[in-house]
């Protein structure tokens, strides 16, 4: 039994101040055992120069969302089943592969999780940055080389004239991630997607890299989409946040709203499971159960089997964030379920600011 609600469907390009408008994106994978709906109807927007964090645990579809925007998925087995991705007035999903290539690295640049393996081991750092510059600008090789040195300097690499001639294996992990950032910035992208940029790095380096990304985002005025599972990073880095669970956005809002007054039980669970100093000696809170099997999604709300507040509508009806009344949380606690006149809650439970800030890299 599915619920059909009249949705406000956006038609045509978004307003001029909206840089990225993702509408009802559905990315599926056809695998041996069946169909995996890795991203199942995700919509969000990023305005020019703004920052959005996407949080969620492994396998919730946050990386697939970013790879869908870049159209970097292998098709097949991947398939962008439906949706629109408007970037700067054009729908990326309607572009030809050639046109899309012009967008990649030029309008949207991406920083990946693994700096150790994301650089090609047999070419120098300079070669790899220059390549992108020559591809997207009219610069000569010589000019591009100088641009590479300049962008290495911009990301805080000392002695860039020497570093530019080095191979990736001669650099440390943090240094390589700086190179990745320099590469991403070399063509002045309008949107920077950082997919867990610090997960593979030492804690001390993490803070430096995050600070660098923030500083550069400030200076260049590009928009930032930060994908992470670290709520501390979100708190430090971005203005808006979207929480993903099992291929959908379940809650979104400003960092203060979502992290201080979480509405969705999943967000609440995420926040209470962060260890903090004050809780020393007591058991760590966990979200009970596991992420649903992608081949066998629960009926109704995807989170219901793990939800401590579940009540009748949760097992029967699937809450969609698009249908939510205060339109920022996909949960029947806040939106009256079909057949009900009012919702149990109006706002999320107030939380102490404690755990959130202690989760941040210091």
């Amino acid at each position, binding site marked *: 039994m599915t619920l059909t609600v009249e949705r406000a469907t956006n038609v045509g390009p978004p307003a001029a101040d909206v840089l990225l408008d993702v509408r009802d994106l559905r990315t599926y994978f056809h695998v041996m055992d069946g169909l995996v709906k890795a991203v199942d109807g995700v919509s969000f927007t990023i305005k020019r120069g703004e920052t959005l964090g996407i949080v969620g645990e492994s396998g919730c579809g946050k990386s697939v969302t970013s790879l869908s925007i870049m159209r970097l998925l292998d098709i097949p087995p991947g398939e962008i089943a439906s949706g629109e991705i408007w970037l700067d007035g054009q729908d990326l999903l309607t572009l030809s592969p050639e046109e899309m290539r012009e967008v*990649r690295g030029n309008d949207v640049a991406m920083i*990946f999780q693994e700096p150790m393996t994301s650089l090609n081991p047999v070419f120098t750092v300079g070669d790899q940055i220059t*390549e992108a510059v020559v591809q997207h600008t009219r610069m000569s090789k010589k000019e591009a080389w100088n641009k590479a040195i300049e962008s290495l300097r911009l990301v805080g690499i000392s002695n860039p004239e020497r570093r530019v001639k080095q*191979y990736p*294996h001669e650099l440390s992990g943090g240094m390589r991630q700086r190179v990745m950032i320099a590469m991403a910035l070399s063509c002045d992208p309008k949107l920077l997607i950082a997919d867990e940029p610090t997960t593979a790095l030492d804690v001390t380096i993490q803070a430096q890299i995050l600070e660098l990304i923030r500083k550069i985002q400030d200076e260049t005025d590009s928009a930032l989409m930060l994908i992470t599972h670290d709520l501390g990073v979100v708190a430090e880095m971005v203005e808006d946040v979207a929480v993903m669970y099992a291929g959908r956005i379940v809650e979104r809002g400003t960092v203060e709203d979502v992290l201080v007054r979480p509405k969705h039980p999943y967000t609440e669970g995420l926040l209470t499971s962060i260890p903090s100093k004050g809780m020393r000696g007591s058991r760590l809170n966990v979200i009970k159960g596991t992420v649903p099997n992608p081949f066998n999604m629960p009926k109704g709300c995807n989170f219901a089997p793990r939800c401590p507040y579940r009540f009748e509508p949760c097992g029967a009806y699937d809450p969609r964030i698009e249908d939510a009344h205060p339109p920022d949380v996909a949960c029947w606690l806040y939106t009256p379920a079909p057949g009900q006149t009012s919702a149990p809650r109006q706002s999320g439970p107030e939380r102490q600011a404690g755990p959130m800030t202690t989760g941040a890299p210091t």
Partner: protein
Amino acid sequence: MSKFIIRRALGLIPLLFGIVIISFVLMKAAPGGPAQQFQRNPRVTQTQIDEWLKRWCLSADASPAAAVKEFAGWFGIYNCNTESIFSEKGGLNFLPSSLGGGGNGIIHGDFGYSIDAGRPVLEMITERMPATLMLTSIALILWVSIAILLGVVAAIKRYSFFDQAVTFFSYVFYSLPIFWLGLMMIFLFAVTLRILPPQGIVTPRAWPPFNTDVYWAAFGRNPIGAIIDIGRHLILPVTVLVLANVAGDSRFVRASMLDALNQDFVRTARAKGLPNRTVVMKHAFRNAMLPVVTNVALEIPFLFSGAIVTETIFSWTGMGLLFIDGVGARDYFLLMGILLITSAIIVIFNLVADVVYAVVDPRIRYD
């Protein structure tokens, strides 16, 4: 780097020593030997046999002590005339003759005489080498290029009809025995269709035996005719070698290329907006070729050792045929000579592979 090469080159000496000892032991363990070989010829007297055996430190005795003596004599540590480790001049036998050492054994450059042919081993090897090099180098170049081409295309078009077809034929040719494939080719192209010669390097009635002085004189008079003649003889054995070897190598290249295409840096290259051709042929290909370089370097010794089965089937008078004939005749000196030279080439090309590897992969440093 030079330090690494010197260190490795010095390490080759004990390795080669080990190889020749093992080959010698295995050869001795096989039944028969030179003494029995001479018995087949009624015109050779017992005195002649005894003298000959003594000259090369050989004996009809099968005791381990006799075998050690034979090996030491072949190697040049033991002097067969004085029957001791001292030479006729009184010095230690393994020293160079100018320093009072002896003249026998491989360390003095004496590879001995073929028991069967009665000619110096080195002369026989140098005589046969060009025929083998001609056959094997053409085959190797062809199969490596075809394997790279097929492997890369199969990897890019993974699971396509082309990929499946390459996989299918790889397994077919990999599984077919070369001798059967060779015979079938001879049957089809030489016997039934009569468009290609069945065997040999040159047409016997039109040309003198290959690589003799008479041959090169004839070659000089009509080079184009000679090349066409050899070319026609090359087609079948080269085809057999290529078919049999492309199979394995193309699978290797395909696997290596698939591995490279799935690396994170390929995704990075795509994320930069590079054209697909650049991503595949520059970023993935260069990395995919690293293991292939090693693989090909290890195949190079084959150029010198020859293709035993193919040469036998096509009566290609090269190293492979020389070796198999030597085995049949228990021709100790010939076998040891070929084994020593081919194993030396193998270890040297291993070293070359390491050096080439350092050139293509900047991550490798040998200091």
